[in-house]
């Protein structure tokens, strides 16, 4: 009888694994692992779309005049919007959906149907944004975004509304799931760090995203009904856009990096074959970064003429974030110390993640200093900094996470050689690209220029070279994932493909 039950469950799981075998199950599934995989596939699709846009941007910058200025504006805008809203944020929702219930010992999310709704809001949003082809930069500063002609901007706003709604739904679902559905024995003092970062991120999503929804609505009204929220001639103020926009978009930076830190905090101990060092320091620093993240938005606006009295507190809160960030780095490095390090692909990406995190942190502290920011703001220095955050930290954590959880998700092994080739191409390309951008910024090259002073040419060529390497790496990644998913060798034990049990560790709670 018991054996029969187990067999039944095993068949159910086997059938369940192939939810993608028919359209009907894809459209109707509400299971958290299915939704998680769907989020990941969606986000990787837009990683390639956004990456393609960035290659066209690099092409235009290297072969002067090959891309018209109007097209150039659309390309860098769609690159930014795609990577932020359609790649990184959905990717974390994907990992969260797949992992959080497993890590807390729950059967599913608290609201499975709401969870499916959260995912199905994304495809129309992706369509609206790509069909809209906005051309005002992802920050959409008023009044430029108010004057932008055509429906493109309006479609983008509606797309972002859908994404914001999805983000709020997802955040609420995670908060309730983590608070209400932890298995006995899984407490705030021992739940995996990935769950801690997901909880903090969810609070940021629920608290900050409504502000984005509000400011987008004001922009929609200004564009279509002639209101003047951002129009000085009608008594409005363009600076209000920046305050409200960054009140969302700075916490959004933490929405985009904290879950990555969570994954790294899972992968590093597993691959060093010992327990994480300083569990509570990492958990507390996560919550602290989330909290402080609400008090720094004005550091995007140093050059707009805010009073110095208003700016100074923002400057020091911004710098203070370096402390909990440093605590994390310290604990990660201490986790490596004395471990039996297994240099597999996820581990290599995790190590490169730590290096990128240090580089972007150092860049960030310099940017926070008001007098230095007068020189560096809106130059390639900022572009370098934000790419070290969003590619060096977020995207590399996505890669690390996909390689690490691939055997758990598919029951198959990815190709380690191709994985390391992907890693080599990506890191060489990435550090070339973003360091070239750093020196462009120090030399005084403003960002978002379709043409530039001749003296910046060589560094732009170096940057494009790096971008090409990343692109080749991405193709290797795509091939590796698809072919391994289809016919990779089966793992012996899907519950423990990394053989953690040999070292007294375990992935999921009992």
């Amino acid at each position, binding site marked *: 009888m018991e054996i029969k039950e187990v067999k039944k469950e095993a068949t159910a799981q086997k059938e369940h694994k192939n939810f993608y075998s028919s359209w009907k199950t894809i459209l109707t599934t509400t299971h958290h692992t299915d939704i998680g995989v769907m989020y990941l596939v969606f986000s990787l699709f837009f990683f390639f779309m956004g990456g393609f846009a960035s290659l066209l941007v690099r092409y235009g910058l290297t072969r002067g005049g090959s891309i018209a200025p*109007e097209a150039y*504006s659309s390309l860098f805008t769609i690159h930014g919007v795609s990577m932020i809203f359609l790649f990184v944020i959905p990717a974390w929702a994907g990992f969260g959906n797949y992992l959080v219930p497993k890590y807390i010992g729950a059967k599913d999310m608290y609201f499975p149907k709401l969870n499916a709704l959260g995912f199905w809001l994304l495809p129309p949003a992706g369509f609206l944004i790509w069909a809209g082809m906005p051309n005002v930069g992802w920050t959409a500063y008023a*009044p430029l975004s108010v004057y932008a002609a055509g429906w493109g901007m309006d479609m983008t706003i509606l797309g972002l509304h859908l994404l914001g709604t999805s983000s709020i739904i997802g955040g609420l679902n995670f908060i309730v799931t983590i608070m209400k559905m932890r298995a006995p024995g899984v407490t705030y003092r021992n739940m995996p760090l990935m769950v801690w970062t997901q909880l903090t991120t969810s609070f940021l999503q629920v608290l900050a995203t409504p502000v984005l929804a509000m400011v987008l609505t004001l922009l929609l009204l200004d564009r279509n009904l002639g209101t003047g929220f951002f129009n000085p001639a009608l008594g409005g103020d363009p600076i209000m856009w920046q305050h409200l926009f960054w009140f969302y978009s700075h916490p959004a930076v933490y929405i985009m990096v904290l879950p990555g830190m969570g994954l790294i905090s899972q992968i590093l101990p597993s691959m060093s074959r010992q327990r994480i060092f300083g569990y509570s320091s990492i958990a507390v620093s996560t919550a602290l970064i989330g909290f402080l993240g609400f008090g720094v938005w004005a550091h995007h606006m140093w*050059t707009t003429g805010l009073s110095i009295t208003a700016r*100074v507190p923002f400057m020091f809160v911004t*710098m203070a974030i370096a402390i909990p960030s440093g605590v994390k780095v*310290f604990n990660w490095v201490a986790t490596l110390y004395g471990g039996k390090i297994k240099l597999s692909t996820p581990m290599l990406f995790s190590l490169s993640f730590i290096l990128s995190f240090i580089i972007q942190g150092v860049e960030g502290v310099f940017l926070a200093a008001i007098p230095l920011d*007068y*020189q560096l703001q809106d130059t390639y220095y900022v572009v370098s900094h934000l790419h070290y955050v969003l590619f060096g930290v977020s995207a590399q954590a996505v890669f690390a996470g996909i390689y690490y959880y691939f055997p758990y998700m598919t029951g198959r092994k990815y190709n380690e050689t191709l994985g390391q080739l992907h890693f080599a191409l990506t890191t060489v390309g990435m550090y070339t690209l973003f360091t070239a951008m750093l020196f462009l910024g120090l030399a*005084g090259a403003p960002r978002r220029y379709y043409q530039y002073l001749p003296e910046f040419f060589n560094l732009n060529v170096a940057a494009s070279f790096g971008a090409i390497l990343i692109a080749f790496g991405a193709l290797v990644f795509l091939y590796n994932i698809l072919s391994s998913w289809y016919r990779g060798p089966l793992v012996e034990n899907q519950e423990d493909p990394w053989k953690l049990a040999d070292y007294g560790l375990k992935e999921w709670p009992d």
Partner: protein
Amino acid sequence: MNTLEKLEWATIIGATILLFGLAALALPVLDALDNPDYYGEPDYIVNVVASQWSWNFIYPDGSESGELKIKQGDIVRLELESKDVIHSFYVREMGFKVDIIPGRTRIHIILAETPGEYWIQCAEFCGAYHGGMRTKVIIEE
């Protein structure tokens, strides 16, 4: 508490002291930042008008030019305005950037010390031809 934990606390406390020390050093200096009276009475005022996608400089005698021409040793008060969207007045050799917000007048003081020609580059994305919105500041001996 083992050695690593002690090291961690030492790092946290050290970084916190550094932050407060930096604040104590910076506060008096930051007060001088953006203070238009810092250099005393300006010699004259130049009105800077930014629009998509050009710069226009209007001098006290009413004359206008597309490049900013000033004399070595002058203390020049710039009054910057925008006709349409946000632009930003950026001279990298002088290490400053002033965002020009429609509906407001921004003030910036230039101390013309070293003769030469320096690029003025618009530093806030202002539409398709943002990358072409460049001119020069010329400091004559």
